[in-house]
């Protein structure tokens, strides 16, 4: 497996994904803020949460990149389109499984069952993250496709 490539390009691809998400947020396309969502797992202060969440996100991206590198090694090939396909799958899993399940484990995210005693402050993302804006699935999908395409382009299939 391409360990050196994984170490460097995993970071690069995650940064690119993060940039797309931030740009989409600034353009008013989505409210999904991954560093905030991850960071509030450990702190209620949104400013600190973003900083901590940024590192958590980089770490998570690096972890997923390991899966991409392993898949490329297993298949014996790595191309941008193969990476993009994996990215599409990755995005679909994130939107349909990870995000909707988050309220069950996130201490500061409300669920659709939240009541008056709830002190959770983050809204539940809902299926496909649609509660964060109807363009969220498109933005998140695109960002993950870019993440995968970059890894497919840059990682060696060994």
């Amino acid at each position, binding site marked *: 497996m391409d360990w050196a490539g994984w170490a460097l390009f995993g970071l690069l691809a995650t940064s690119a994904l993060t940039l797309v998400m931030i740009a989409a947020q600034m353009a008013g396309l989505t409210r999904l803020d991954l560093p905030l969502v991850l960071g509030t797992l450990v702190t209620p*202060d949104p400013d600190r949460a973003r900083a901590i969440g940024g590192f958590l996100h980089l770490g998570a991206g690096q972890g997923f990149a390991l899966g991409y590198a392993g898949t490329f090694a297993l298949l014996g090939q790595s191309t941008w389109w193969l990476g993009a396909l994996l990215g599409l799958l990755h995005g679909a899993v994130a939107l349909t499984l990870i995000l909707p399940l988050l309220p069950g484990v996130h201490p500061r995210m*409300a669920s*659709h*069952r939240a009541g008056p005693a709830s002190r959770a*402050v983050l*809204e539940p993302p809902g299926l496909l993250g649609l509660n964060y804006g109807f363009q969220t699935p498109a933005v998140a999908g695109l960002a993950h496709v870019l993440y995968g395409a970059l890894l497919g382009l840059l990682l060696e299939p060994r």
Partner: protein
Amino acid sequence: MADRDGSRAPREPAPIADHGLIGGTRTAVLVTGDGTIDWCCLPGFDGTPVFGALLGGPGAGRFRMGPLDPAAPVARRYRENTATLETTWATGGGRLVLAEAMVAEVAGRLLPATVLVRRLSAEDAPVTAVVDFDPRWGEHHRRPRTRRGPGLVCDFGRLALSLGSDPPLEITPARPATITVEPGRPVTVVLAAAYGEPLIHVVPSTAWDLVSADEARWQEWAGAVHRDLPFRPAVVRSLLTLRLLTYSPSGAPVAAPTTSLPEDPGGVRNWDYRYTWPRDASIGVATFLGTGRPAEAERFLGWLLHASRLDRPRLPALLTLMGCRVPTERTLDGWPGYAASHPVRVGNAAAGQHQLDGYGWVLDAAWAYVRAGHRLNSETWRAMRGFTDQVARQWQDPDAGIWEIRGDAAHHVHSKLMGWLALDRALRIGEGHRLGEAQRRRWLTAREELAAEVRDRGFDPVRHSYTRTYGSDDLDAALLLLPGLGFEADGSSRARGTVDAVRAELSAGGPLLYRYPPGRDGLPGGEGAFLPCSFWLVEALARTGRRGEALELFEELLGLATPLGLYGEELDPATGAHLGNFPQALTHSALVQAALALRDTAPGTPGRPQRTG
């Protein structure tokens, strides 16, 4: 216990004021004095009606539990400081009591998101009662597929309902079941709803325990409300109503749980209020901060921040409960409307309007939060700076105003005042937060220019009053908010003159006021007196040194509440009937704000804080 066919003939609608509100902070139902639930949307406040008889006629679904022969209740009340409604009828030598509530706290347990519990008890003698369960789904009153599980299961596809009872009853949709309720042997009926997830059946005795636990929590909640508030029971009921109208999953306050209850019975002034106005959330911040419930205030601020994210620096006039864009306004064909008031609308076209006043409410809420000793985090302050920049850029533009006039935009004086308020409050917050000098100067300049223009073009020296729009002869009851904003000194002749002129020219008799001269909005028909304006008058009088008058007026207004202490948006000055969507969050917030003004201006109270929210 036997079934019998009941008459489904249309009947006169129950007066709006006859309705009680039962809620679980995710959705709510309206129930009439004869025990009929005639309004309930699922899965949330802004969902699809499953009991819609209020607007759609008998075929749109209802759920009645009460005496077999409808009778007026002899007593009706909320259990003290709770959300449990209790209705008592005297019938056939006995008394029948219906206690009902929605379960609010379901998180963390295997419970459905929506649980409605209704319990009938008899006192003195057995009483014959009826259970008439007829759910219909959506615009076309779809009937359910039914099956028997632990109780009755009504399947609509994505939505499923489970109706269980103790003792077990043979209930069939649309076929009223006659039962005999024996003293000491209450009948408990539990309705559980599942939307896009498996049904969870709730054992009736467990459900009743959940209601009891909720009651204890509500009492504790109400107990934290400041003790020194004047007219505390009415204020607490308003706060509880506001909390019941707050959507817990996002923290959004819904303006009202209904759509299209008419401002003009038989007319076209029927709007969908099942959304959230940033204005209401902002007023809520100050309302809950001022009464000792800071957690609710923080959630409103959090919602504002989250919901406005997609459109910043523009502030939408209204948003869905999850902070998304409000659906395009359309009418429900075939729905006759309340008292033949059609169209029945869903969605709200006001969402696309430019309303300058919204920025003022939001910045004032942020200022209230800061003044209460909190600090805005960097994202909140960044958002507030963005809103303020937007005001500095846009204050010269005409807008739709607080009353959301659907015709041409105009230079509404109240909007300009609120624009001034946004700039003023942002400058005050900036004194304790990071703010660039160039930005500060820009806001300062805009504030001064705006003030000069309003004083020049928005004031009528003949009547000695600010006007509805620049150069207009009309007045606007929203100008009652002027005292306390800081734009004019509270005791200034301009502030007092405006309050007096509005009171004289927009009076609808007694303590009631029209919001603007009736009929001057381009819509056919008239409307009632606008209740929040009357509470704003109380506040204005209190803040302009006429506390005695304010107190009298407030007491009169408390007498206009429904027997359950609820208020709609408007009141018919001739009949005293409540009009418009019900119950109305803005009216209840205005009531609390008026009580806070009375408290703040009480003799011996140190300082006189400016109005916030």
